[in-house]
């Protein structure tokens, strides 16, 4: 049987394109159900306090109010990671940031709910407010959470791969640089919304703008003590996600509970301000990179420390912490490596996974440091990188398996396309170019809840109508997952994508897919879809082969027909072929599933970083910098992405350009920052400007022209060779901008965003004969835990730590989390 590639690799209208341009895509807030009520959350007005008293009587008395809820109704904690189930739908005893939900009102309309919400009286007893990592490190008490490694440190990890100290000591040059990456947020244009209802059987149905219906399903079952089998979660198409809709959220749990209690549909749609409080965005990260380099520009060792401001809850934070150190080795050959990462709690909205999850910050540091290394060694930064690209089919010092790697081609492509050799260090003052690279996972190798189950499942239904329906729990967040799913099935079965109906993101109807995060959908869902479709094709081929007396191996599925490769006239329509198969085998249905290969990283913490394959990107950014004002303009970006294979080049290009766009925003203007009012006058610690107007994101006028090249070497791990594209192309943009600014005006901006204020200050420092740099000046002393020492593969390591303490089995049971957390606390204190 052969594939013709009629669908895969061709630019096509996405299958849900028509719905999206006619306004027919039903987002969560577009759902209206009979007898529907509306919910509003009262959020904490103080950053850190004990709740002394809540009086809801005035709110409950308002005409049109059906129910007022407080934390009393929500005794059970939940959270996305099993190690940090630290959230309650409504705060019970303590509020941890301005915006933390305290109470909920359910009323006949939103305006009534809002009016009643303002009548709820809450008395708080202020606790010390932690506004920064320095605060949290300096003051272990009061603890923002009772769990965590120690004091207000949520997580501190230390890993070492080989004798990095000796390697750095033996280097020709040691570069020791500090970087800072300010926090920023996803800013999806759709505000989170959820509709919950009790169905006719008395079961809970939740429609929500979530990227992870499976995890929401689990969280609801736990938080509401309902059997998971009695809960249906439907992920509505997300109006933008970028990681911001990947946690189970308070409002989802609240309306689910209220719908069950009132037996009426309940809707909530957050305001823009509330979306800023949900956050889970980019962690602010302080970094120290100590790198040993030979005079030829190869790296002998890297010693990396990161400090993450986690905000008030765990979210994905433990994973985020490891991710700040996981992927350094995947791009470049780094034979010895030490990574130490620390995440602290502060009284701000929780940080979590935003496009690139934990890796953009340290990618920024690494790529800017490489630019400095190249400058010092007088090597072209492109050549420096080409010389140290990690080889294909290799195992990194931290036991990550690199398969195909098109990074060198990406670098060569952007160097060529941007005319780099004639521009770098050759443009007049105020004009510059910068280069940076990156890599990203094509799906996390390990699930969030460690188990041996498939990460993605696909079911296929075919019947005598010739119709094909494909079912998968994957979630459409704009990236085109429905299109990938349908295209793969259509390609394998030789039919048109519009012949296939997709049912996705519905825990009642679709097999589990873990969700739209970690760039996992195309690879994992895609492989599962190939398996399901090939199994269906096998059945159809059996039936056609018998009926038409054509050897099975000669059958071709294409053009909505099944026919003899040697005599294309001999064959039958796809519809007739399905009918034959249904007659022969009975009702037709096939399944496919995908589980990533086991990682070779067996040490504690090795669960973050492994992936079936990695994508690679290189970018050259051109900037104009006005030396008088510091203003930066980005006219053009050249980017090459190692995609493996572009399944639908139109969508792939859209992901690349969208990643560049978001990278430009992060590089130049986006900041999730806070105001601490003078402590003697006020207890306030507030988001500086939770609005779309003041959270600056680029408009069409700020967007450069992007020249995209796709590097296509099909990767054996990916469906039809495809790797990820949703996240990787964002990553090189921020360092490339900073490097370009240096090329333009000779100042180093070692902190993101690269604002005109920072550039002008650096230029003034330069003019005054001081260090032409803006960036952090020091890295605090952190009481790191004992370093886990792992012998790298090249020195005969096994992937286990040499000094790893015995630890319990990976089977983590949710009910045991608190106990575990308490155990960790005891260890840390003893």
């Amino acid at each position: 049987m052969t594939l013709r590639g009629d669908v895969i690799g061709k630019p096509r209208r996405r299958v849900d394109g028509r719905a999206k341009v006619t306004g027919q895509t039903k987002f969560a807030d577009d759902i209206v159900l009979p007898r529907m009520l509306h919910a509003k959350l009262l959020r904490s007005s103080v950053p850190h306090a004990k709740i002394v008293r809540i009086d809801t009587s005035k709110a409950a008395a308002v005409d049109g109010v059906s129910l007022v809820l407080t934390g009393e109704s929500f005794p059970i904690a939940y959270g996305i990671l099993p190690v940090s189930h630290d959230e309650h739908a409504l705060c019970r005893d303590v509020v941890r940031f301005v915006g933390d939900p305290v109470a909920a009102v359910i009323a006949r309309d939103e305006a009534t709910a809002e009016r009643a919400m303002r009548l709820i009286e809450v008395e708080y007893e202020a606790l010390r407010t932690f506004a920064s990592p320095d605060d949290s490190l300096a003051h272990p008490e009061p603890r923002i959470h009772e769990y965590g490694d120690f004091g207000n440190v949520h997580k501190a990890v230390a890993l070492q791969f080989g004798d990095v100290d000796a390697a750095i000591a033996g280097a020709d040059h040691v570069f020791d640089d500090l970087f800072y990456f300010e926090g920023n947020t996803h800013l999806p244009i759709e505000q989170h919304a959820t509709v919950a209802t009790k169905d006719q059987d008395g079961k809970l149905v939740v429609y929500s703008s979530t990227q992870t219906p499976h995890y929401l399903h689990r969280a609801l079952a736990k938080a509401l003590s309902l059997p998971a089998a009695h809960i249906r979660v439907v992920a509505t198409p997300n109006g933008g996600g970028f990681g911001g809709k990947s946690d189970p959220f308070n409002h989802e749990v609240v309306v689910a509970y209220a719908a069950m209690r009132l037996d009426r549909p309940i809707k909530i749609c957050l305001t823009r301000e509330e979306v800023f409080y949900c956050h889970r965005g980019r962690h602010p990260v302080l970094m120290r990179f100590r790198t040993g380099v030979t005079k030829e520009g190869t790296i002998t060792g890297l010693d990396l420390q990161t400090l993450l401001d986690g905000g008030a809850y765990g979210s994905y934070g433990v994973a985020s912490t490891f991710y700040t150190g996981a992927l350094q080795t995947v791009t470049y050959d780094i034979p010895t490596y030490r990574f130490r990462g620390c995440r602290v709690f502060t009284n701000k909205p929780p940080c979590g996974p935003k496009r690139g999850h934990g890796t953009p910050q340290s990618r920024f540091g690494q790529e800017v440091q490489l630019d400095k290394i190249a400058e010092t060694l007088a090597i072209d930064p492109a050549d420096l990188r080409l010389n140290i690209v990690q080889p294909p089919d290799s195992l990194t010092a931290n036991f990550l398996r690199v398969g195909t790697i098109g990074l060198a081609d990406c670098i060569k492509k952007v160097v060529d396309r941007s005319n780099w050799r004639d521009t770098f260090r050759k443009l007049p003052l105020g004009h510059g170019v910068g280069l940076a690279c990156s890599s990203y996972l094509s799906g996390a190798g390990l699930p969030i809840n460690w188990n041996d189950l498939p990460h993605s499942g696909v079911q296929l239904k075919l019947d005598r109508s010739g119709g094909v329906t494909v079912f998968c729990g994957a979630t459409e967040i704009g990236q085109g997952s429905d299109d990938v799913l349908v295209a793969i099935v259509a390609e394998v079965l030789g039919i048109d994508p519009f012949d296939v109906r997709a049912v996705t993101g519905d825990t009642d109807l679709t097999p589990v897919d873990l969700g739209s995060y970690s760039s996992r959908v195309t690879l994992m869902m895609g492989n599962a879809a190939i398996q399901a479709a090939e199994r269906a094709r096998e059945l159809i081929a059996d039936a056609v082969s018998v009926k038409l007396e054509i050897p099975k191996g000669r059958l071709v599925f294409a053009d909505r027909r099944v026919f003899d490769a040697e005599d294309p006239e001999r064959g039958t329509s796809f519809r007739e072929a399905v009918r034959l198969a249904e007659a022969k085998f009975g009702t037709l249905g096939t399944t496919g599933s995908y589980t990533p290969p086991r990682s070779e990283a067996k040490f504690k913490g090795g669960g973050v970083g492994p992936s079936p394959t990695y994508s690679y990107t290189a970018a050259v950014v051109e900037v104009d910098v006005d030396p008088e004002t510091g203003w930066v303009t980005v006219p053009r970006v050249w980017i090459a992405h190692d995609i493996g294979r572009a399944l639908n080049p139109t969508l792939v290009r859209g992901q690349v350009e969208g990643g560049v766009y978001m990278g430009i925003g992060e590089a130049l203007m986006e900041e999730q920052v806070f105001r601490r009012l003078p402590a003697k006058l006020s207890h306030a610690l507030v988001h500086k400007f939770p609005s779309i107007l003041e959270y600056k994101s680029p408009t069409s006028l700020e967007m450069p022209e992007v020249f995209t090249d796709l590097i296509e070497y099909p990767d054996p791990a990916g469906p039809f060779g495809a790797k990820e594209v949703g996240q990787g192309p964002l990553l090189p943009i921020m360092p490339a901008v900073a490097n370009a600014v240096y090329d333009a005006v000779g100042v180093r901006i070692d902190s993101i965003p690269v604002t005109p204020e920072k550039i002008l200050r650096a230029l003034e420092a330069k003019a005054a004969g001081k260090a032409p740099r803006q960036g952090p000046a020091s890295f605090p002393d952190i009481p790191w835990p004992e370093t886990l020492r792992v012998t790298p593969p090249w020195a005969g390591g096994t992937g286990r730590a040499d000094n790893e303490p015995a630890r319990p089995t990976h089977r983590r049971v949710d009910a045991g989390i608190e106990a575990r957390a308490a155990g960790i606390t005891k260890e840390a204190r003893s």
Partner: protein
Amino acid sequence: MMRLPSYRYRAPSTIGDAAAWLAESPTDTMLLAGGTDLIPNMKRRQQTPATVVGLRGIAELSEVRDGDGLTVGAGVTLSALVHDERVRQQHAGLWQAVAQVATPHLRNMGTIGGNICLDTRCTYYDQTFEWRKAIDFCLKKDGDVCWVAPSSKRCLAVSSTDSAPALIALGATVRLVSATGTRDVAMGDLYVNDGMQYLTRRADEILTSIHLPEVAGWRSTYWKLRRRGSFDFPVASVAAAARFDGDRIVEARLVLGALASCPLEVPAAAARLAGEALTDELIASVADDAYPLAKPMDNTDFELVWRKKMVRSLVTSALRELRGDDMRQARTRLARHPLLQVS
């Protein structure tokens, strides 16, 4: 969804009716023109009038009349001004100012009268009720501390109108109509450096029209500082207008915007410019005159130190443009918009 508080809505069709209704209860009645300022403020509960008088139905407010200068009805939309060739040709400073307001949609809605009366802005004030509650409110609304400078006796919210500096530079006057009479006020006299009482317009008055005097010999310009080429309010701006006789300036006005609670005229600059040709040295010394007047506070986008530094660049650019230099590239760089084509 953010929703409006409830109010009584009235839609008069004449200025007289509007003035009469406004006179009934001026302090808790607000005028609704384009709505681009008032509606967000009401949704955030910064303003909660009992009565809203919609002016959209008053045809007279949308008229533009030629003769003895240009008289523009207060209800003329910013887009209409952008598309008015008379404005573009003769009052370039005003055209540039309105062309840089917010976004194409907001210019389609917003009116020139509304932009002149734009509420002063502040990052402690332009926030929802819940946010403001978290800081215990501020002097301008529901509180008693100006968080921008807690020792300040007055509110330091920022005059953020683009059109006002341009109109002051152009010597415009506005007509204010109330149930008891009509008066014309020079644009420069319309504003007070107080974030709360920033207008000399009485609560019972309606701003009905703007008069731009004859322009023979005058050139004008407006330079705006903001993060993005769209959406953003100014964080500093400069309007300049000068009457030329050949290369020499006969008289000139220079006005700073978005650096205080009202537009700031720079009289020293005007004096220095009179009778002179615009040399680089003169431009530099005028920029020096303007610089100390700018006292930005930390209540807009950007660091205040940088905003203040930018005043020199803005003044220099404005005067160079008046001189006739080709400033198109500088405009894209400094003002984030080429201003070649505007919706």
